C-alpha cells in the first residue's frame, strides 16, 4: 500500500480536519510517531516506590511492564514472555520480585532475567536461559519521569525535551521527589490529536468557573520548545478573589511555599500533558486506542516532604479540581468529544487567537493564544511527509 497522503494548506494556522478522522492516517501515525523516533512518558517512578513494585500499561497497543527490582532499580520491559510472547503480568499494579508465565512456567526476575524454565533438555539443542531475558524498549528517566522509545534513532532524552525540561522539572516540584495520590482514568471519544490540541491549551471563555469565582489568570508566558513544538506555560499563581459561590474555599486555595511556580503546563509531543496548578501536581499519560478513542490516565501526586495537612489538602484539591469530572476541567473533556465530532466535516480547522501572520511560525505566545499548537502541527506534518500547498 502506498503511504497515506494528505495535502496540507499553505497557511500555518490551518489544519485539515481529515487529519483527525482518517483511519489510514492513523495506522501511519502509529508507525511513524508512536513506534517511531519519539520519547513517550509512561509512568513516574514514584508510582512504584518500593522494591518489587510494578505497573503494566499499553502504549499504542504495546504492552509494557515497569518494575523496580529488590535493589531499587527501575526498568521497563515488554510485558510478554520471551518464549511465545504470552502476556506475562495481568495486574495493573502490584508487588512481585518474580514474574511467572503460566503457559510454560518460564520464570523471570524483576531484572528481567529468565531464571527458570521446566524441561529445557527438550528445547532446541544449545538452549541457554541467558539468551532469553525479557525484551526491553529503550527507556530513560528525567527527575523520575520514565520515558520509553521504540526506535534506536531517537535522540537522547535531554535533547528531545530541550527547554521544556526546565519547566517540567519545576512542574514536578523542582526535584521529582513525588508521592502518588492516585488515578483518574478515562477514555475520550476523540482522536489523540484532538485531545492534545485542547488539553493543555487554555480556553478561558469555556470555563464559567473562572468568572463565577472572580478568578483571573496570573501573568505568564506560553512558549514552544524544540522542533516538535512541545508547549509550555509558565504563570505566577493566581487565586480567586472576591465573593465565592463555593462553600469549601480550600478547593481553590494555595497552601504551597512558592507562588512563583503557581502554575505550569508542559505538553510534550505526541500525547503527554502535565500540569501543576495551585497545589495539584498532575501527570497525564495518554495513549491512542484507535483513530477515534484516546485513553488518559490522570496520575496525581504530592511531594515526599509534605506534612499530613498538606498531603490531605492535595488529595482534596486534586480529586475535585482537575480531571474528567473536575470543577475547572470537566468542560475540556466535553470539548474533546465535540471537536472530534465536528471534525468529520470538510475543510480545515483554522486557528485564530494569537496568529499574527499565517505565513510564519513563532515560538513565544501569550497565555491564552491557540497559536501555541501550530509548531507541533508543523512537526506532525513533516513527520507524516505531507506536502504543504504552495503559496
Amino acid at each position, binding site marked *: 500500500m502506498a503511504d497515506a497522503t494528505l495535502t496540507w494548506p499553505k497557511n500555518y494556522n490551518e489544519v485539515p480536519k481529515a487529519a483527525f478522522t482518517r483511519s489510514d492516517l492513523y495506522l501511519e501515525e502509529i508507525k511513524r510517531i508512536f513506534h517511531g523516533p519519539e520519547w513517550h512518558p509512561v509512568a513516574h517512578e514514584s508510582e512504584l516506590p518500593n522494591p518489587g513494585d510494578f505497573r503494566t500499561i499499553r502504549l499504542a497497543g504495546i504492552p509494557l511492564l515497569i518494575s523496580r527490582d529488590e535493589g531499587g532499580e527501575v526498568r521497563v520491559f515488554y510485558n510478554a514472555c520471551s518464549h511465545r510472547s504470552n502476556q506475562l503480568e495481568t495486574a495493573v499494579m502490584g508487588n512481585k520480585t518474580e514474574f511467572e508465565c503460566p503457559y510454560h512456567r518460564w520464570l523471570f526476575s524483576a531484572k528481567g532475567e529468565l531464571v527458570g524454565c521446566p524441561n529445557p533438555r527438550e528445547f532446541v539443542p544449545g538452549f541457554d536461559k541467558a539468551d532469553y531475558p525479557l525484551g526491553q524498549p529503550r527507556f530513560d528517566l528525567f527527575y523520575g519521569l520514565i520515558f520509553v522509545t521504540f526506535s534506536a534513532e531517537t535522540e537522547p532524552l535531554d535533547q528531545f525535551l530541550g527547554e521544556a525540561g526546565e519547566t517540567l522539572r519545576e512542574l514536578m516540584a523542582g526535584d521529582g521527589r513525588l508521592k502518588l*495520590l*492516585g488515578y483518574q*482514568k*478515562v477514555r475520550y471519544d476523540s482522536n489523540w490529536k484532538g485531545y492534545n490540541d485542547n488539553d493543555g491549551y487554555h480556553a478561558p471563555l469555556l470555563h464559567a468557573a473562572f468568572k463565577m469565582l472572580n478568578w483571573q489568570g496570573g501573568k505568564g508566558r506560553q512558549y514552544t520548545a524544540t522542533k516538535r513544538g512541545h508547549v509550555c506555560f509558565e504563570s505566577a499563581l493566581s487565586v480567586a478573589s472576591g465573593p465565592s459561590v463555593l462553600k469549601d474555599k480550600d478547593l481553590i486555595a494555595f497552601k504551597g511555599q512558592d507562588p512563583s511556580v503557581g502554575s505550569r503546563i508542559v505538553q510534550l509531543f505526541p500525547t503527554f500533558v502535565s500540569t501543576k496548578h495551585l497545589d495539584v501536581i498532575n501527570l497525564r499519560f495518554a495513549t491512542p486506542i484507535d483513530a477515534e478513542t484516546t485513553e488518559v490516565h490522570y496520575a496525581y501526586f504530592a511531594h515526599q516532604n509534605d506534612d499530613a495537612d498538606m498531603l490531605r489538602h492535595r488529595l482534596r484539591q486534586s480529586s475535585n479540581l482537575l480531571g474528567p469530572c473536575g470543577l475547572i476541567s*470537566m468542560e475540556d473533556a466535553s470539548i474533546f468529544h465535540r471537536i472530534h465530532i465536528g471534525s468529520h466535516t470538510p475543510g480545515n480547522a483554522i486557528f485564530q487567537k494569537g496568529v499574527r501572520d499565517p505565513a510564519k511560525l513563532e515560538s513565544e505566545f501569550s497565555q491564552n493564544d491557540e497559536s501555541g499548537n501550530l509548531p507541533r502541527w508543523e512537526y506532525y506534518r513533516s513527520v507524516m511527509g505531507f506536502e504543504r500547498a504552495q503559496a
Partner: protein
Amino acid sequence: MMLSPTKLEGALDRLLLADANALDSKDMTGWLTNYAEEEQASYYCRAAENTEHNLELGFMFDDCRARLEDRVIYVTEIWAGTFQDYRTRHFVQRVSHRQVDASTAEAMSNFSVFMTPMDTGVTQILAAGRYLDMVRLSGDGRAKFLSRRAELDTSVLPRYLVYPI
C-alpha cells in the same frame, strides 16, 4: 432503639431508591436531601483499583457537607450548558447491611449505571461497582446517608462525569 429487620430494610431501600431516582431525574437538590444534615456528611466516587492500593484519590471527593452543597452548584450553575448531556439509569441492589447502633446502620449495594447521551441516543454502560454506605437513622424510621462511597469496578470511565454516580 434497634429497628426491626423489616423496618430497617424498608428504611435502607427507600433511601437507595430515592438516591437513584434523584440522580436519574438530574434533581441535584433532591440528591442533596438524601444526605444527613451533619457537617461530616460525605460522598466519594472512586475507582476500586485506587482503594485496593491504598490510594485515596477519587473522581469525586466530597468529604464534608459544604462540598456536597458545592457539587449541586457545579452541576446546576457552573457547568450548565458546557457539556453533552446524558440520561442515566441506576440499578441498585442491596447485598448486605447491619445496624451499628440506635442511630447508625451500614449497607453495601451493587450498582450498574446505564447512560444514554442525548446527542447519540446510543445506550452504554457508564459504570458498575458497589456502594458502601454509612446511614443515619432517625427516630421516625427515616434514613439519610452519613457517608456514601461509590467504589467503581470501572477503573477506566467511558466518558467524563457530570453527575455523581
